[in-house]
């Protein structure tokens, strides 16, 4: 624990805050009551104090004093800082500054400030005792001599302000010296004791979340602070968890200390007092751990986490620009308690700490490069700009397709074959470059999914502790990258699924042992890339889902019939129905029956898919399929009757040609046998009810009228059928189309609110010739089939 940039900043802020107030007060006093010498003296005394302090600090920030004082001297810090602040208040209020306070009380308070409790007298307290009598100058000197401050880059700008403040001080002092009786009693005890109660209030009650700061008015700076704070908090989260696992790792502790310290410094700079205060206590604690005076217990980590929760809340408050009103006194108290009890040893061992401190500082400054060695240099880009860029690239992709069709026409019927040749070449080159641009721009939006994963460790830990379960969360593939929007959107569904696993999946340790399993449960969260898709799986080795119970509930709710012969998969997918829950008891974690349907909807919205598999006594595994990106999709263009539709390649398993005689009928439905599986088939024009088009579509453009004539090609239909096999890995079906056109990259666009809910249509895309083609939503189509034609599934 050292005097650092933060404390220095705080000093400067305080002093700067006080000076103008003092000056104005002085003049008003002189105007109002020229006879009140006493108050005048107080003021002058304070001004003098302040100027001294400022000078000292100025000197101090220039010299890099390396002298270290024993740790307990630091108990001076809060005292001195309040000395400056509170007497000023009392003067302003013209109250009698002789508020008395017993030495005992003062001692207790001072001890508390440094995280001690008041019971046995400790060396530190003895020192406090003497320090309350110590002249302020001595205190200043002690402060100045303390370990050298860590200079934040911003202190440069602060220095200029200091100069200005100093000038003002000099002027004030000149005035003060002109007045008789301006000599100060530097031993004046009222200043010290008077300040103490005020400080107590601050500790026991609340601090204001936002203090005055010259930076806090700058939105860019605030933005920087927030992004920084978010990162640091995330880092802290991971590291604290790691610390719990290996409590002695010096590397982790240093890392934590760095993060905590940086955040504290930043919060101090912006005068976010509440954040600063909590951070400061946490830092104290980490400091003690790093010095081996404390060990990390589960309870301690709990406190740290709840402190971090509050911090997050407070940072959110900063983000929203208004105080959250969150109480922080309690957590500060808890943190104090954490540090407490070790203070006796602390003062003894701290005498030997200068070397450690130097180490800390050594790692402090290059924190950014050492903290994340694997991180490359990065630049923050406004997401909106990036989105605009992505959209623009999308337009370029369309343009390229258009170029290609022009080029083709030129080549075929152009009168200048040479020119056409050049054109072809250029277009090809253009296409190649476009591919690269597209690749890069897509990668820019990609972030590792680990960002979303890391917080789950924490959730699992908290939940399992509160449920009395022992659970390890194993994370795999956190470096898998996917689109930022998807990473953001997938967070909540994943939390829900993981909570389910913890709450319903993993059994209590004793149950696990009696079932012959290890008492520690395991949840596996893994992500991996499969072609254009990301597979996220959540596996637990818990008790699995009660298939029969789900079936019963399903019958109860009228979702299925008693005599329905359902596959396991169908039964499990009942849990995605709205309002479906098999939990006997509603807990605060899960069981209300809202959730799984929301999870599913969210995933479908991301053009993903979710699948569930469970085995009683062995565990449950949920797999989620997500597209890598939402912006550009590879699609297969197919034609049914005269209409062209696009099927996203991510949902296409294969396309095959079959003879009509391969078709087999089961009841009303057509199926084929394909690699030992029975594949239900649908005619695309039936699915989309394209026969209605004749009635509905009045404004056909001339080319379409022509293609109408070609529709008589029923011979092709007789000889060969094109079947596009679509669906997920496990549930597939075939769409019969009239012809396959080509593959294309396209940008799926919304077709406006009016068209948002068209069934089986994900959106529109613009082809090279400027025409709109509809992109089919295979996932939705599949769910229609499941709702409407469960019979076919049975056969399949």
């Amino acid at each position, binding site marked *: 624990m050292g005097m650092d940039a933060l404390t220095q900043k705080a000093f400067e802020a305080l002093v700067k805050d006080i000076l103008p107030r003092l000056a104005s007060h002085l003049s008003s006093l002189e105007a109002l009551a020229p006879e009140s010498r006493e108050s005048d003296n107080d003021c002058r005394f304070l001004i003098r104090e302040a100027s001294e302090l400022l000078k000292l600090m100025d000197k101090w920030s220039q010299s890099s004093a390396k002298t270290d004082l024993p740790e307990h001297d630091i108990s001076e810090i809060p005292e001195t800082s309040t000395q400056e602040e509170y007497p000023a208040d009392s003067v302003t209020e013209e109250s009698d500054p002789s508020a008395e306070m017993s030495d005992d009380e003062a001692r207790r308070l001072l001890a508390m400030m440094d995280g001690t409790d008041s019971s046995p007298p400790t060396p530190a307290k003895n020192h406090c005792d003497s320090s309350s009598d110590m002249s302020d100058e001595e205190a200043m000197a002690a402060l100045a001599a303390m370990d050298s401050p860590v200079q934040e880059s911003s202190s440069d700008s602060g220095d200029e302000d200091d100069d200005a403040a100093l000038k003002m001080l000099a002027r004030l002092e000149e005035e003060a010296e002109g007045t008789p009786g301006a000599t100060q009693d530097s031993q004046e005890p009222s200043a010290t004791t008077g300040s103490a109660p005020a400080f107590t209030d601050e500790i026991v009650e609340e601090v204001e979340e936002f203090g005055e700061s010259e930076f806090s008015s700058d939105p860019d700076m605030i933005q920087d602070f927030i992004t920084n704070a978010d990162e640091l908090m995330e880092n802290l989260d991971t590291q604290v968890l790691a610390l719990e696992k290996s409590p002695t790792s010096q590397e982790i502790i240093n890392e934590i200390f760095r993060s905590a310290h940086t955040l504290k410094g930043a919060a101090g700079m912006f005068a976010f007092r509440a954040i600063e205060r909590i951070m400061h206590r946490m830092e104290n604690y980490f400091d003690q751990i790093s010095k081996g005076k404390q060990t990390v217990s589960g309870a301690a980590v709990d406190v740290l986490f709840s402190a971090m929760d509050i911090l997050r809340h407070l940072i959110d408050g900063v983000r929203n620009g208004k105080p959250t009103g969150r109480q922080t006194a309690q957590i500060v108290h808890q943190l104090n308690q954490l540090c407490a009890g070790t203070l006796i040893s602390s003062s003894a061992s701290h005498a030997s700490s200068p070397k450690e401190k130097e180490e800390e500082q050594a790692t402090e400054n290059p924190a950014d490069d050492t903290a994340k060695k694997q991180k490359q240099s990065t630049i923050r880009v406004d997401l909106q700009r990036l989105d605009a860029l992505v959209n623009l690239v999308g337009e370029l992709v369309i343009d390229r397709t258009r170029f290609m069709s022009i080029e083709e026409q030129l080549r075929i019927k152009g009168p200048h074959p040479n020119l056409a040749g050049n054109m072809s070449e250029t277009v090809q080159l253009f296409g190649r470059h476009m591919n690269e641009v597209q690749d890069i721009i897509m990668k820019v939006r990609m972030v590792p999914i680990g960002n979303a994963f890391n917080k789950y460790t924490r959730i699992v830990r908290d939940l399992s502790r509160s449920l009395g379960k022992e659970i390890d969360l194993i994370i795999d593939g956190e470096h898998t990258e996917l689109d930022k929007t998807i990473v953001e959107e997938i967070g909540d569904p994943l939390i829900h699924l993981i909570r389910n696993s913890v709450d319903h999946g993993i059994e209590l340790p004793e149950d696990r042992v009696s079932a012959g399993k290890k008492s520690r449960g395991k949840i596996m969260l893994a992500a991996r890339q499969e072609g254009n898709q990301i597979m996220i799986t959540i596996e637990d080795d818990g008790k699995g889902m009660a298939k029969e119970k789900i079936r019963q509930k399903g019958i109860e709710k009228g979702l299925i019939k008693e005599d329905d012969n359902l596959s396991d998969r169908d039964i499990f997918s009942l849990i995605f129905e709205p309002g479906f829950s098999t939990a006997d008891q509603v807990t605060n974690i899960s069981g209300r029956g809202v959730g799984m349907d929301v999870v599913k909807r969210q995933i479908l919205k991301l053009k993903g898919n979710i699948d569930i598999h469970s085995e009683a006594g062995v565990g449950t595994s949920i797999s989620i399929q997500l597209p890598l990106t939402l912006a550009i999709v590879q699609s297969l263009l197919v034609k049914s009757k005269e209409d062209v539709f696009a099927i996203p390649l991510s949902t296409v398993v294969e396309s095959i040609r079959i003879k009509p005689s391969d078709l087999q009928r089961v009841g009303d439905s057509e199926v084929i046998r394909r690699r030992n599986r029975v594949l239900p088939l649908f005619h695309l024009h039936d699915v989309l009810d394209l026969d209605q088009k004749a009635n509905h579509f009045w404004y056909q453009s001339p080319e379409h009228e022509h293609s109408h004539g070609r529709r008589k090609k029923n011979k092709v239909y007789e000889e060969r059928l094109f079947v596009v096999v679509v669906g997920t890995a496990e549930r597939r079906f075939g769409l019969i189309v009239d012809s396959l056109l080509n593959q294309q990259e396209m940008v799926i666009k919304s077709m*406006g609110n009016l*068209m948002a809910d068209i069934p089986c249509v994900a959106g529109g895309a613009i082809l090279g010739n400027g*025409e*709109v083609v509809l992109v089919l939503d295979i996932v939705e189509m599949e769910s229609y089939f499941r709702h409407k034609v469960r019979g076919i599934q049975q056969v399949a």
Partner: protein
Amino acid sequence: MQWDHGNSRSGVQGSGIFAIRGNLDGETEEEFTEKEQFIGLKIGDEEFYLPIAAVNEIVMLIPITYVPQSGKMIEGVINLRGTILPAINLRKMMGLKKGTVTPATRIIIVRHNDMLIGLIVDTITYVHSIYPSEIETQTLPGKGMGSDLVTRISKNGSNITGILDISKIFSHASESAKSGHDYENMGHLAG
């Protein structure tokens, strides 16, 4: 190019604003207020007016892509320079029979509540500036959608012309879009 009355004050279209004071053509005081502008259009043989303030632009009949199960009022979607938007079949909404596509057929792109849609009309006629006093709020007694769409009537000169209510067109279109794809209407899938 969205016109509102405020802008039209200074524009060429604002002819009504600084109308000659006094009794030159025997108009009374209240008629010195601003004129409202309308686009005249024909659906079938009948002329209707459409408030110009809502009109974004007018385009030729460009290829329309049929969207299955989108509701019968929605003819399909069009590509307006990279934006895909639905085109409404006003003939159908008026309860008329299928007409023929002529070179005069136009799509009027209108904006309503930040939504863009296209209205397919048989032709457009003129831009009319009409005094508020010549407009009557009037619902039509007729049955069916067509009379629904008119909530005001212009009695400019000898002609009586219905003024189309864009919000009505929108609500009919979105109702139609919803009913077009009820789960129940997907019955053909089950068969």
